[in-house]
């Protein structure tokens, strides 16, 4: 069996990962496995790492996949496949879809819960609070508890949040 990366040397490292109901298999030679930093196959989404961002997402091959490039820095999925690193901070938005699966397997969670720059801390806290209130508001509406809903709506307005009708979508 040949290594699926360099297609030259025989594959001696075999990885199998089951994501949902799909099984992914990779066969690598020792050099390529090392180059990709594989010693703990459980710690990342293999396909994302090996085949570029978003490869583990189901892409319809017949749809003719257009390569995404970061509008800010011109970085592409192929570049990520080469280096395992992104081009600029904005790449996280550009490749958000492809990154989501990778981050899930890599980290404890997908939402940052630690420190934030002081300038952003306030708006961040307000954002968190608004999200919570919105959730409560939806629950209140569903339960037809209109008194509670009115109070929540006022509080959301007070924090500068969107009008309930708009935010509820």
């Amino acid at each position, binding site marked *: 069996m040949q290594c699926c990366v360099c297609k030259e040397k025989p594959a001696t490292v075999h990885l199998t990962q089951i994501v949902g109901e799909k099984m992914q298999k990779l066969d690598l030679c020792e050099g390529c496995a090392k180059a990709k930093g594989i010693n*703990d196959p459980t*710690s990342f989404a293999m396909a994302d790492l090996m085949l570029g961002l978003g490869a583990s997402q189901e892409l319809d091959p017949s749809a003719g996949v257009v390569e995404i490039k970061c509008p800010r*820095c011109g*970085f592409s999925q192929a*570049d990520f496949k080469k*280096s*395992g*690193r*992104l*081009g*600029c*901070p904005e790449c*996280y938005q550009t490749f958000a879809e492809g*990154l989501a699966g*990778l*981050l899930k397997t*890599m*980290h*404890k*969670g*997908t*939402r*940052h*819960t*630690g*420190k*934030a*720059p*002081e*300038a*952003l801390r306030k708006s*961040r806290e307000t*954002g968190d609070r608004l999200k919570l209130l919105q959730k409560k508001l939806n629950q209140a509406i569903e339960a037809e508890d209109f008194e509670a809903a009115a109070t929540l709506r006022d509080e959301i307005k007070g924090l500068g949040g969107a009008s309930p009708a708009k935010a509820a979508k």
Partner: protein
Amino acid sequence: MKDLHQFLISPSSAAQQHGPHDRIVMSSRVRLARNLRDSAFPGWAKKPERVKILEAILPAVGALPEMADSFAEAMDNLTALDKQILVERHLISREHAAKSVGSGIVLNREESFCVMINEEDHLRMQALRPGFQIREAWLAIDRFDSALEKKLNFAFDNELGYLTACPTNLGTGIRVSAMLHLPGLVLAEQINPIIQSVNKLGLAVRGLYGEGTEALGNVFQVSNQMTLGESETVIVERLEKVVAQIIEHEENARQTLLEKKKKVVFNHIGRAYGILANAHSISSKETMNLLSLLRLGIDLGSFPGTERALVDELFLTTQPAHLQKQVSDKLTAEERDLIRADMVRERLKDVSRPVTK
């Protein structure tokens, strides 16, 4: 331009720095990765952009009170030997040592803060402390970062936190690590199960020089791997807890070895002393491994009157770049082995044979 070697703490003073539990925890470190909002990451930015980033970051870092007395330099102004010395001191990564134009370093006099500019990220700032002081290192670098964010615009996303070049550092951008000397667990053949259980907790165990290096001299680095989804405090506390447990296992292993395998331990220590005190040619790798046993011997009371600092100093001065720095001519590896052996023999001439009670 300051001379790096005038600036660096001498190996003997460096070895004299003490901290809690330093017979097992050699040092603690917390590093934060940060990037500027509107620039490409160092690996993707072109040279002029990297130089611009470096020129923006250098003065901002230099102006922090912690860096009032500091060594700040562009990497292209450092010789290969200087860079290697910084690696051997664990002040910069091997990756950073390979950088040149557009990358830089700022190091304070006490060597308690060291900032790498344009390594994998625009900023890799580290707080270093001797012994088991993980929390102190975190508090120090947290303050440092809070002061710096007033001068620089860091890339931050409400969902994802601090944005880093590699998704593995995303979120907190934190890496908390402790360097541990674990000869007891290695001799008792308990090190592998310990490494495995530490791995299961989502922590990495690496060798002396970080990623992809072997555990020379029975020195291991334990650090967190996951950076997103948990707060810095949670990560710091987990590492603290795990390191405290490893310390306990190491102490127990040493105790058990003394009770049940005394001859094996004394054989190792005695042979290490014999070779180090009498060799006329010795490689850096063999030196490290034998010095580790000597250090264990000192901890176990086999060398009354000899301080651990002697070994810690030799740990540093016998490494290739430090050795090369002490002589003017360019040495081959074979010549270094001769000079290394001479130096170790000289330093051990007043150390008597191990006491084996």
